[in-house]
Structure formats: C-alpha cells, structure tokens
C-alpha cells in the first residue's frame, strides 16, 4: 500500500483536519512507515476466525424508563464557544 499525496488529502478530508504545509511530507512518510509495519498482519492466518469486538461477553443493560431531570440548558451551553438565545451558534449552512 503506497501512501500518495492524494491519499493524504483524502484522509484529511475524511478526518476534517488539515495538516500544516510544512509537516505534510513528514506525515506522509510516517504514515507510510506505520502502514508498512501494520501490513505484517496480513501474514497472520485468520481463516474462519470470527472478528471480535469485545473480549468479554457483553449483554445490553436495561433499566427502568424513569423520568429524570435533564441536564439544564444553561449547563449544556456552559462550554459552548458561541451561543445565542439558548442555542449553539453556528455559521449559516443553508442558503
């Protein structure tokens, strides 16, 4: 697997991040090196092995549907970078 400049741009877009111009080349070669190492996993025979998300058997935990107080709006907005009239403030996204 070769990490091209286009792939770096694609991954930036997927992750909603932009690398500083001066660290792009280093990031590309680092990712290449990491991926090369990660590719050793392809040697491992996993034929017929069920993928495992959790090591311990987990079951859904149910609880009674009791009415409990919600987090107050004031608390929800406490850490918001911008707010207006009890709402999060965002730039216009529809024309």
């Amino acid at each position, binding site marked *: 697997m070769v990490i091209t400049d286009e792939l770096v741009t694609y991954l930036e877009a997927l992750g909603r991040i*932009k690398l500083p111009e001066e660290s792009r080349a280093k990031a590309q070669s680092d990712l290449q090196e990491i991926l090369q190492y990660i590719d050793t996993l392809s040697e491992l025979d996993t034929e017929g*092995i069920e993928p495992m998300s959790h090591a311990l058997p987990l079951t859904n935990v149910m609880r009674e549907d009791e009415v409990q107080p919600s987090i107050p709006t004031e608390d929800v907005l406490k850490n918001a970078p911008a707010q207006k009239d009890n709402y999060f403030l965002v*730039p216009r996204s529809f024309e």
Partner: protein
Amino acid sequence: MNLADMTALELGAAIKKGEISAVEAAKFSLGQIDKYNSRFSCFVTVQDDVLQRAEEVQQKITSGEYTSPLAGVPMGIKDNMCQKGIQTSCGSRMLGNFKPTYSATAVEEIMKAGAVPLGKLNMDEFAMGSTSETSYFGATKNPWNVNCVPGGSSGGSAAAVAAGECFYALGSDTGGSIRQPASFCGVTGIKPTYGSVSRFGLVAYASSLDQIGPLARNAADCAAVLGEIMKQDKKDNTSVATKGVALDAVLHTDVKGMKIGIPTDFFGEGLDKEVAASIEAAAKQLESMGATVEKFDMPIVKYAIPAYYIIASAEASSNLSRYDGIKYGYRADDFEDLLDLYTKSRSEGFGMEVKRRIMLGCFVLSSGYYDAYYRKALQAKALIKGAFDKAFEKYDLILGPVAPTTALKIGENLSDPLKMYLGDIYTVMINLAGLPAASVPCGFDGKGMPVGMHLIGNYFDETKILGAAHAYQQVTDWHKRTPTELENR
C-alpha cells in the same frame, strides 16, 4: 512522622487514629507540589479548594461518615477524567477551556471514599502517546532523571506519585498508559479487567480498550483504590459486575504453589538486556517464594501492535469526531462556512499525534480497506484472547516485562512515531484481550532508571495479581526507593 515515606494506607490509618489531620496531610501535599511541580510538571491544574475539601473530609471522618481506609488521603486525577467545575483538558488545546458540568463515575466513587483531590495530572494529548511529551501543556519530566520521559500517557500520574506530590493517582490505560509510566517511574499501577471500572466521564480515546485504574507506591495501596472504584455503573453500558478486590486477601496472599508462566516471545529482539535480567531475577525471587515458574510460547505477540494501532486509531477517529468547535472545546477565530469551522477548529485544536491517529483510523475504516485492516485486526484480537485463554488454563499469572526499555531521553522518539509504537509491544495485547495487568517495580538499570515487571492475570483476578505483587513487595524494596533528585526524602 515523615509523611514523605508513607503509603496511602499508612497515611489513611494515621488520619483515622487522629495522629494527623486530613488538613495537615493536604498542606503537606500542596507543599510538595510547590516544591516540585515547576521541575517535573506533573500537575496541569492545582485545585484551589483543596484545604476546604480536606476540612470537610476531616469532619466526616470524625463524624463516622467516611470509613474508607483512604479517607483524607491527598491524591491526583489524570486530566482526562471529568470533574465538575475543574478544567479537564486531556492534554489538548482542544479542551483547554473545558470545565465539565458533571463528574466521572470513578471520580465520584473515590470522592465518596473521602478522597482529597489535589488537581489534574498531565498526560499525552487525548492519551495518545507513550511519553507524555505530546501534551499541549508541555512535557512531564521523570523524577528519577529530569532528562528522561516519565512514560505515558498517564505520565503525570506516575511522576506525581514517584515525586511524592500525591499519595496515589487515578490513571487510564488504553494500550499500556498506566503500566508503562508506572514502570518508567518506579511505582505500582494496575489496569483492571475491561469494564470493571466505569468509563462514564472518561474522555474517550478507544472505547473498547479504555480502562481506569490506580497508580500508587505499592500493591496494597492499588488494591485499596481499586476496591473503591470497581463498581458496576448504569451509565456505562460496557460496565460489568465484578467480585471487587479483597484488600484483606491481597495482604495475606502466599505465592506458594502459584503457577507462573513466562512467554518466551516476550524476550525477543528489542528487549533491553538489563530489563530482561531484572525480569529473570524477579522470576527467580517468586520461585524462591514457592511459585512454579515455567516458560511457554506465545507466537501471536508479534501481531499485537499492528492489531492494536488499527483498532485504537479506528475508534479514535470516530470518537474524536465530536470535537467540532460547536458544543464545547476550541473554536478557530476565522472561518468561511460550517465545514471550514470544523476543519480549522480541529486543525488548530489537535496536535500532530492526534491528527496522525485520526488519519490512520479514517484509512483503516475507509471503503476498500476495511476488510484488510479493521476486520483483520478484530480477528487478530480474537486469536490474542484465545492465546491468553489457553495460557490461563495452565497458569495463575503470566510474567514478563512491561516495556522493552527503561525511560527514554526526552525527544528521543518524538519524531519517530513507529519507534514509539513499538515500545508498546507487551502492553497493548492486554487491552486487546481485556485482561487485568499490573506493573510492579523489580529493579533498576545501570543508569539508575526503574524497571517494572508485568503481572498479568485472568479476567477478574485483580486480587490474585495484587496479592502476588504484595507478597513480592514484602521481600523486596524496589518500590520503596525514591529518586535522588528529591530533597528531604
């Protein structure tokens, strides 16, 4: 009474007996922080209500409300656990101004036991790193040698305990982040079984691997802390019911008759000779105490790092998508539209290692690569768990090194991420398998840096791990040594 030499349980007992008050203990710890924080940078935030809390705790100890053996003991909390009203920055610019409006369950539980929190401890940004150098707030230094890293990501927690700035600390471990810094700083730390401590209020890195646990001066202290925080929690749907930790059983464990296995594959290329010698010596010590020690093969070891970095990065890329500059956290000043707001806020708010893992995670989850990477890693995880299940049919505990080396020089691995990842070889497998494991001081290298041994147990065998560690600590004094950098110790 020399507080600097006391363990958390010893201090708790002295407070209970009225030999010293919780307020005096808190004043002592604040003094230690004054003395050392500028040198080691363990605490990112020191709380301004420490003495007030200590007074309240003292009253409740006197009135009989707080009965925990740890009541009144000053402690620290890793900066990725939410604490109501206290800055919880996760070592990141992204959360530099974040003051949670609620507390993590683990924090609430330890408060119910009468803890006196001193402040928040430094860490690698979003717990991604093995050196505590990726923190936005600057690197923590190793109290044994300030030119060395304390390990990571719970580097602030380990260094603060080693420097005597607090009597115990809460840390978190996703791929070794409690055990490796414990090893580098010569303290005892344990990552319990996945799900046994609630993750509610722990800032998520890789949710299927993250687990909170204690770092302290010895195994008995770790057992006492774990006993308070290992509780099933309705607010965490991966939380499990456990039998807890029996402190009394830990204190009376005899390793005689215990079967301990050592994977030969832990002693391959890359393992420092002095570290290997310390582990071999620890094995001999346990043998002389009546344990049976035997070597066995575990060839799956070499696939642990690739599997871990795929799974952890995948989960991180998903978990960290919540940082959008809108609900909380950092927001860039100039932006053209909503997408630009997201991208600029995230680019300015996250450091390089976090960006790297987000990109790696996006890659392994992206269409066309999912099966070859993410699915494959989950299969490797199943094989790793299987290998441990098989080993525990035969052994009570598994012994090995925590890390291939002792603490590295500051800056040594910062520019070489792959080299840093390779240092996680022994620890990440434990998170993939969801097992409990501790780091226990077992020697020093020629440069005077501590070495930790890895004691791995079967699911919910925290009592057995800490019991064996405690028995070992009754006949060794590695855990009692203190850095020469410290005055008045």
